[in-house]
């Protein structure tokens, strides 16, 4: 099988790159091994949230302060603003409507009621532009009876500390009561499947309307399957409605993943779901083909290849007893050779492995045994030099490196 570009990895970065290429007429194949880490996304994208533990107000202003090996520095400070605009537009084209801008971070509200800096947040989800000037005062937190994947006490407490006046209310409907009869069914995905029809959403609206009292805003756990369900429910509520992220699996993330996949396919992209790259043929400074688990002796051939296989979670990187390596092509990685240095004491301390990834040149080309591979880019979480946990730059790196690599490929 021959296409213009083969992308290994079907998560946020792989799909973004695939969409950008397919839009410009390229034939693109994405090999997606399984679920993406969007499942742990709370409905926001972050560009750069923290430097040295301090919240960043204007991400674009501080890119130049990042270490030289950070992916943003490789892309080039001057390109970041433009790529950020493109990313927001691409999401919108896929039907993912967000608020926010790269010029100034806003605050998202986490499932535990913590305010974290964010770049873009889904329009259906709660976000706060300025924590000093809250958009409203009285909030009714609508808790689904028996739904334990939202720590309601922590969420309410966090909102109180931000300055909101929070009323916690509990509700249920016939559908939800039925679901509760099974001891393990009260999860966001199961709820989203029950809350689809107008009549089931109407029952939710009736319940929460009755509890809203004098609230300025109603907050509901993000357990709706799509934007349409949200719009329907919002049209039936007596007060403005916003969603709050839950513990995983996150319906917001699942929705974004679906929308991106759908858009990619609409553009003619080939999405090989449930397959994974196992090896590649490299000739000189070029990748010739990639072999996948399911296609076996029908390797994928292309002019360009993109590695968007993610970090350890997604198996884009592998750590064994002795070393850290990239499992498909054994590319050069930035990682300590001594296992003792991969981690440190204190689970909430910065962990070195979080910054590990494949080595790239300044155009994000991969490197194998010291030699640059000219038709293989790496994008997203498989890249070294950034820290999605402590810098809150994960989704931003995924989106922007994906677009930068696409530009590079298209310019050839």
């Amino acid at each position: 099988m021959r296409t213009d570009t083969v992308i290994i990895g079907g998560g946020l970065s792989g799909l973004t790159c695939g969409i950008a290429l397919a839009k410009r007429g390229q034939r693109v194949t994405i090999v997606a091994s399984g679920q993406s880490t969007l499942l742990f996304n709370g409905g926001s994208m972050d560009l750069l949230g923290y430097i040295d533990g301090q919240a960043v107000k204007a991400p674009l202003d501080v890119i130049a302060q990042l270490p030289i090996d950070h992916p943003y520095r490789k892309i080039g400070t001057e390109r970041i603003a433009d790529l950020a605009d493109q990313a927001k537009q691409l999401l919108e084209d896929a039907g993912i409507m967000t608020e926010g801008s790269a010029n100034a971070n806003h605050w998202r509200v986490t499932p535990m009621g913590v305010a974290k800096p964010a770049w873009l947040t889904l329009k259906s989800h709660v976000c706060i532009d300025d924590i000093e000037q809250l958009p409203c005062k009285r909030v009714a937190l609508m808790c689904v009876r028996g739904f334990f994947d939202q720590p309601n006490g922590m969420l309410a407490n966090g909102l109180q500390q931000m300055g909101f006046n929070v009323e916690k209310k509990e509700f249920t409907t016939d559908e939800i009561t039925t679901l509760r009869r099974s001891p393990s069914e009260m999860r966001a995905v199961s709820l989203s499947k029950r809350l689809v029809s107008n009549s089931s959403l109407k029952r939710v609206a009736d319940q929460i309307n009755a509890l809203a009292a004098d609230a300025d805003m109603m907050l509901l756990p993000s357990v709706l399957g799509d934007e349409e369900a949200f719009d329907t429910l919002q049209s039936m509520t007596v007060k403005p409605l916003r969603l709050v992220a839950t513990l995983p699996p996150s319906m917001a993330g699942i929705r974004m993943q679906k929308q991106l996949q759908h858009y990619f396919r609409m553009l003619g992209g080939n999405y090989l779901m449930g397959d994974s790259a196992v090896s590649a043929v490299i000739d000189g400074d070029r990748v010739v083909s990639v072999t996948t688990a399911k296609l076996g002796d029908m390797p994928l051939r292309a002019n360009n290849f993109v590695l968007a296989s993610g970090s350890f979670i997604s198996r884009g990187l592998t750590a064994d007893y002795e070393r850290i390596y990239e499992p498909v092509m054994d590319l050069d990685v930035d990682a300590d050779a001594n296992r003792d240095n991969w981690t440190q004491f204190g689970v909430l301390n910065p962990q070195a492995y979080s910054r590990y990834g494949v080595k790239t040149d300044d155009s994000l080309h991969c490197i194998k045994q010291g030699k640059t591979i000219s038709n293989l880019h790496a994008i997203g979480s498989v890249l070294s030099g950034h820290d999605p946990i402590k810098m809150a730059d994960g989704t931003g790196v995924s989106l922007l490196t994906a677009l930068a690599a696409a530009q590079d490929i298209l310019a050839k």
Partner: protein
Amino acid sequence: MIIIGGGATGAGTARDCALRGLNVLLVERNDYSTGATGRNHGLMHSGARYAVTDSESASECISENMILRRIARHCVEETDGLFITLPEDDLQYQQTFVDACHRAGIRADVIDPEEARRIEPAVNPDLIGAVRVPDAAIDPFRLTVANLLDARLHGADTLNYHEVEGFVINQNRVEAVKLLNKKNGEHVEVRGRVIVNAAGIWGQRIAEMAGVKISMFPARGALLIFGHRVNNMVINRCRKPANADILVPDDTVCVIGTTSDRIPIETVDDMRVTREEVDVLLSEGVKIAPSLATTRIIRAYAGVRPLVASDDDPSGRSISRGIVCLDHAKRDGLEGFITITGGKMMTYRLMGQIATDAVCAKLGNTAPCITADQPLPGSEDESIFKENPAKRYSFGLRAALGRHGSLARNIDRDNDIDNALVCECEGVTVGEIKYAVNDLHVHNLVNLRRRTRLGMGTCQGKLCSCRAASLMGEFSHDVKGAQEDLAAFLDERWKGMRPVAWGDTLREAQLTAAIYEGLCGLDMVVDTTGKEDVQ
């Protein structure tokens, strides 16, 4: 009388004393079973392991083994065990071993290697010999709690998070214990006619506070827990005891161990597992069950055995692995102070009996010991096992029955909220958490884990810890405390994961970080640095 130490020995002593009508207080500086009791294999020895080298221990083990099957049914899983001979071992040893077992009264049947492979498919297929013995698996957390519950049912008081700071000694008699309440910082003094030091390896320090000297020889052992249960029988190497030669199936996981290293007494609180220990456990472990090489390791931990130097040889050359009971009145001229130490988790009941006999002798109490005959709470009544619950609640209920035995009847399961699963790996329901908080001295998530196994399964508390923290925050109306507790729980899990943080364990760690830091921002609201480790 006052018992110092909330491990199996202290709990067993408290139960025995209470059953004989004594007025009992047990104090523990941390949570119950945090010392060697909670840091071993969870193996109910048949005694076969000691048959050749220590016939006295072997006889004690088989006798206690048979007793525990009766009195602690809900803590025991009757798996049986194999002693396998590998090509690198001497098959001649097998006959010596079997003869020694028989002399100690331990059933030991030589079986064909083919039969061994059939009954235990995980065993190294290259084995050249196998002996079947009545080893079993036992849950030491559950066992300790059951003893404490029974002690309380018979009038005893138990206090955890109370640390001994010193003694009041008057004219060669210990009259009172000075305690620090670690929860609120208060100092209290409690008077007792007899004080029993059952503090395990920490007993040396306790004795020093009373002005008497015991020479302990701390022997550290490290173990690894694998992500699922590869074996259904205990598998031992049929050779002289050595490193990493026992693999025990414990509930949903299995445990390989141990190493054995003499360590300085000053380091007994440092339970970090080293790279060298991990390497030894892994390389030896795969010889017992080759599939361990490809099984995820979920955590590593270590414990310290309280071995004691015999009194006539303070140099430590002759160290006893047996039970040591010291009446300090006879030994040191200090009245009202008894030390019970040495021994094994396996023989905790016998140690309790010996210590209680010594206490009773001092107090003139002649009541007989009945702990070998009277079942522990949870094991005394079979009726609930025959109950036929509605099918849809069966997983949580059956898991709870396994953990709490007949006491599971105290768990609310009348409505769908109480039956909701909080921990899917181990089948822990909201009702079981309520029961543990109300009846089993649960103050935090680590306590809860020891009582219910919440967070002990494959995912190591990925989502259940947050659900449970949220529930406990609602019970206590302390949300901030619940967040700190959650962070402390995750940190405690990380301590065990870090020595084996590669492969899927590193992936789990990254996932935990993605959820609790990335998504939730727990690291923004909790500061765990520099805190004393009070679990």
